[in-house]
């Protein structure tokens, strides 16, 4: 007993739990921290608090019945998950998608991406102690939710895409509403820049803090804004153009610094690019069907395995499916971006101050149900 006590006294580190109920983790994530004063010696994320085994669910229901599950993983960018899943099945079963449906998919996914980035923007600044921007961001995001609700029928956990198309056509009021929203956000973004991006407190909290190197991103398989903030020009929409993304003119914001500020800037600039894509898609929106002429009834992909990736708001979301030729998946693997992005947290935060590590965690843009699946 005495020896044990002595050992504890000699050891100058202590262990604390961050979470599983902690506002900075944005959900039920726990991080086991070994601390030396205010400095982190070791950080180990503990996952699984909201694990629901979506992959097993995929194996015990038909392909179509799994569709609603897609909106319940990354609940902030549910349409990207819709897109990844239906695109994988369309590739496997060789289903053709009418052009109008693809355009509608792009428009709605990009709207969803903006809403996801807006929520991240508000919540991230909230993590750093600034309360007001959250209210502004939610005000903007509300407009998108209204627009998406009018076509998809839901506000958050969308289940809008179908094999071969989309469930509902967009109408004129959606198109004018979207154009108005873009006009509005274009006016708001400079204000965010002036109030938040150029704010000296924000800069001091983010600049040169939480560096993630190119090589670290590669070894951990980080994608999305995390990789692009580390100088990696990788976006599935450009790298591996799916849907009709090759028909639009847009840029991929890449920042070389690798710090939390760079990841912040990537997302802020991405919203502008998403608006460019939406505008072009609305201009070019073709007339026609939103589902194949011959209705897709029973999907039975040929035996074999298939992979399809899309760019979700947080990075590359991949679906690897193994079909045995029946109407149910033999194996359905969901590669979620934040899972890989968070896995580098332990290495990246070694020796960092705890408040800086929380800033880094915020800049990773975590959605816990997507990590735990």
């Amino acid at each position, binding site marked *: 007993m005495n020896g044990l006590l002595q050992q504890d006294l000699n050891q100058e580190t202590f262990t604390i739990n961050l979470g599983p109920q902690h506002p900075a983790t944005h959900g039920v994530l726990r991080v086991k921290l070994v601390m030396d004063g205010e400095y982190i010696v070791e950080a180990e994320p503990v996952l699984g608090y909201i694990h629901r085994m979506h992959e097993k669910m995929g194996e015990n229901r038909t392909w179509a019945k799994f569709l609603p599950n897609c909106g319940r993983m990354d609940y902030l960018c549910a349409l990207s998950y819709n897109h990844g899943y239906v695109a994988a099945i369309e*590739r496997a079963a060789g289903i053709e998608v009418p052009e109008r449906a693809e355009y509608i998919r792009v428009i709605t996914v990009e709207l969803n991406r903006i809403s996801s980035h807006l929520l991240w923007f508000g919540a991230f600044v909230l993590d750093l102690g600034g309360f007001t921007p959250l209210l502004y961001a939610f005000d903007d995001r509300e407009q998108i939710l209204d627009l998406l609700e009018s076509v998809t029928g839901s506000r958050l956990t969308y289940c809008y895409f179908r094999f071969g198309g989309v469930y509902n056509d967009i109408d004129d009021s959606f198109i004018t509403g979207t154009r108005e929203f873009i006009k509005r956000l274009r006016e708001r973004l400079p204000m965010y820049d002036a109030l938040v991006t150029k704010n000296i407190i924000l800069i001091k909290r983010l600049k040169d803090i939480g560096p993630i190197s190119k090589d670290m991103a590669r*070894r951990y398989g980080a994608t999305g804004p995390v990789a692009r903030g580390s100088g990696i020009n990788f976006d599935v929409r450009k790298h591996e153009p799916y849907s009709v993304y090759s028909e639009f003119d847009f840029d991929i914001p890449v920042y070389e610094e690798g710090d939390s500020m760079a990841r912040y800037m990537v997302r802020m600039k991405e919203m502008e690019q998403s608006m460019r894509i939406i505008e072009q898609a609305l201009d070019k929106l073709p007339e026609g069907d939103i589902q194949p002429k011959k209705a897709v009834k029973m999907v039975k992909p040929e035996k074999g395995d298939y992979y399809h990736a899309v760019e979700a708001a947080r990075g590359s979301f991949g679906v690897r499916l193994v079909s045995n030729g029946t109407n149910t998946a033999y194996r359905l693997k969901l590669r979620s971006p934040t899972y890989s992005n968070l896995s580098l947290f332990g290495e990246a935060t070694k020796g960092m101050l705890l408040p800086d590590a929380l800033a880094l965690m915020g800049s990773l843009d975590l959605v816990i149900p997507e990590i735990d*699946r």
Partner: protein
Amino acid sequence: MLLARIKEALSSLYEDIQEIQEAPEAAEAAEEVETAAADAAPAEDAQPEESPAEQKESDSEEASEEAEEPPAPPGPRETDYKTKGYHLDAALPPEKVVAAAEILSQQGFFIEAITGVDWIDEQQLEVVYDFNHFDELCRVVIRSRLDRNEPEIPTISHIYQGANWHERETHDFFGIIFTGHPNLEPLLLPEDADFHPLLKDFKA
């Protein structure tokens, strides 16, 4: 061209596994033909990629095997990207996976995911590794089949640190043991979980 480069690099792993991969009957047949094919002209053209030095050394043996070559020689297989979604598919025995990961890492690939598939009818578990490249579109799939009753495969988490979590997850779901893994504790399942839900014979 990245695809050609990585294909060639991965081919080197197959040099000594000609026999392991072949079905036992085929190997026996090869021995029988050996004498007959001794003076047959060596059909070098159709040979799989191998280092030229070794080819010359084992000319006669190679020729005999060539004489009744099975339709697909072992080696990384190029797949149709449009329908499959990946470019290169390499099936390897478990002990070769680390070498493959080293090759991919040298070429700058990043790891997308690791997962398993339970082939219960064949009493096998398959481990599937997905790799991709940041600069050029090239998706590489490495797969390895394990005995379902003794699923063991060496870890690649010392090469790709991101593999750490993917391997833990695969251990959670399938019970596959990644030897040498620094911390093969349940990650997504409860810490005392002793079940593997993605096995086909798992009943809740």
